[in-house]
């Protein structure tokens, strides 16, 4: 009785464990003699499995924050724990594996590799790993993912043969193929018409539910807010509402 209770407790605790823990995070850009404070002491955490929207006007520091969270950039000061691991002081090249195994990126500009077709673009993060699963197994997972994001008929297409919405679907599949803990989406719908945007948003929410993957979604579009269970408002490099 006692032991089953404690294991239940552990499970609850595990589920609520924060994937992202940020304290007093600052980012200062030096532009010649002037300094730009892009982040001015951000405190912020994201629990495992959440779908969080980071909402703020253009220039408020969303991209800067996501880049630091995504281990692409280093904060000027403050602490950042990703999955309990302090990554705030490590060089981005050291963090290549962390990015590869734990994080998926979705960008405003889709950022696909033009010489690779849809399958290859999606496979890419797994193919650059040192230890790889079998090619057949990977293909199978890519196929399933393509079906999930609605790309079955375009698997052999090159990015320049796809529409914006289709390209973003490829990017989403590429972000998910590694089964990451965290997906970072930086204004993923900014280059899409509203209809396509809605489809992409809906897709991301469904994936968040089905895969229990944590999503962090930056946007300046207040309409997106309604879709999220949680919204973090950011302005001038500070969190103004959580």
């Amino acid at each position, binding site marked *: 009785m006692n032991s089953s209770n404690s294991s239940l407790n552990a499970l609850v605790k595990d589920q609520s464990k924060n994937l992202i823990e940020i304290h007093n995070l600052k980012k200062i850009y030096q532009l010649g003699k002037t300094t730009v404070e892009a982040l001015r002491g951000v405190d912020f955490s994201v629990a495992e499995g959440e779908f969080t929207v980071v909402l703020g006007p253009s220039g408020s520091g969303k991209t800067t924050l996501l880049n630091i969270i995504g281990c692409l950039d280093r904060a000027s000061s403050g602490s950042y724990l990703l999955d309990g691991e302090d990554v705030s002081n490590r060089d981005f090249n050291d963090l290549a594996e962390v990015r590869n195994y734990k994080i998926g*990126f979705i960008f405003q500009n889709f*950022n696909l590799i*033009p010489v690779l077709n849809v399958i290859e673009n999606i496979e890419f*993060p797994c193919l*650059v790993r040192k230890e790889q699963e079998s090619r057949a197994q990977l293909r199978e997972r890519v196929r399933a993912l393509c079906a999930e994001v609605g790309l079955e008929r375009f698997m052999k297409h090159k990015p320049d043969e796809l529409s914006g919405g289709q390209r973003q679907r490829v990017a989403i599949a590429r972000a998910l193929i590694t089964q990451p803990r965290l997906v970072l989406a930086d204004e993923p719908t900014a280059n899409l018409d509203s209809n396509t945007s809605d489809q992409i948003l809906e897709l991301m929410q469904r994936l968040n539910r089905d895969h229990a993957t944590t999503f962090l979604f930056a946007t300046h579009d207040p309409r997106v807010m309604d879709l999220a269970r949680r919204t973090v408002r950011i302005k001038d490099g500070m969190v103004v509402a959580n």
Partner: protein
Amino acid sequence: MNILYQVAVRNVFRNRRRSLFTLSAIAIGLAVVLIITAVSNAFYRFSIENAVNVKIGALQIHKSGYLSNVSLNQLSFHFQYGQELLRKVESVAGVKAASGRIAFRGLVSNGRNQALFFANGVDVEREQKVCPRWLGTLTEGSQPLLPSDTGQAMVGQELARSLNVAPKGALIRSVVSSETSQQTEPGEFLNLSGSSPQGRQNAIDVQVKATTKSLLPLEEKRSITLPLSAAQSLLGLTGEVTEIAVAVHDLDHLEAVQQRLQAAMGSEFEVSLWSDVQPFLRDVLFRQKVLIGIVSFILFILVLFVIANTMTMAVFERTREIGTMLSVGIKKNQIQRIFFSEAIFVGIIGALAGLLLGLIVVLVLKRIGIPFGSEGFEEGMLYPFLQVPFSCAAFIAAVFCAALAGLFPARRASNMNPVDALRA
């Protein structure tokens, strides 16, 4: 194939026009190197064969000390020339034929004017076997020396002109050409004077049987060839020579024959290579090789810059792709590998094309030959050829060049900051 190499190869085909430009730079660079080397090879072989077959002979035997005593009277290094000695030389493996000579100098006169000459007294019967083209190129109306000749000579055409002598058959032509200058009819005889090793003066008359052309102006101005017996009697060296010229079966193994021959002859004699006898020719040929080497080097450097330039452009154009790859967790060295292998791939394709182009041109030139030298020299044809090891080395050098050129852009690509790269 590894996805990184796939990305590299496909990017080569992505910007076709630029890749084509890079490829042609490599291809043309390599082809030019191959072609000039092939022509230079032909010139080298031509010069050596010319030297060996026309004048010098592949190997020469002298009394020890002969070559190092150029300033002294070399005639004092004379030795008995007979069947026994010839048999000894010709029994050495690799030797084809041997022939005795006396090289000397003296004054030639037509009765009014004098000139300095360098003469070769040759064993006419044997000389033919040692230097198949010993007669060189004769002017019209000339008759070659025959084994039966004793008092005849072949004279460089410039020397003959200055002393106003000509072979009998060439008379008519000379008269026509000297109409305006009121020259007397050319004579047929010359008086040669020389001195014995002991310094005793002597002179003989010779009949001009032929006048000779040469690629070397000095030879046309100074050289006289006469039968060995005539030289022997002029110099008081009956039955003796100062030099034995030796022909070998295979020029590529000349050094081995030289060593065997030296061993057979003993320390009383010295056996020299054509290149020791004619250091001038050797140096000219060496300098030519160095020059070709420098030109090739410069060509490769140019190619290197072309590749480095286009690769750098490619890196800049693909900055955002680099950022993307970094964001999905690719490592710096993997980025480097993409661009580096791209350069090597371009290098290999370009070098293959260059090799093909160069070989085709060389084969065609080998087929048709390149006319060479002044007109009137029947054998002045160059037949370019390439050696396999050199062609391989040049191919590898071209690929290596491409790799070297890719190194810097590849490093540049891999050192990009992901955030800046993504923003581009």
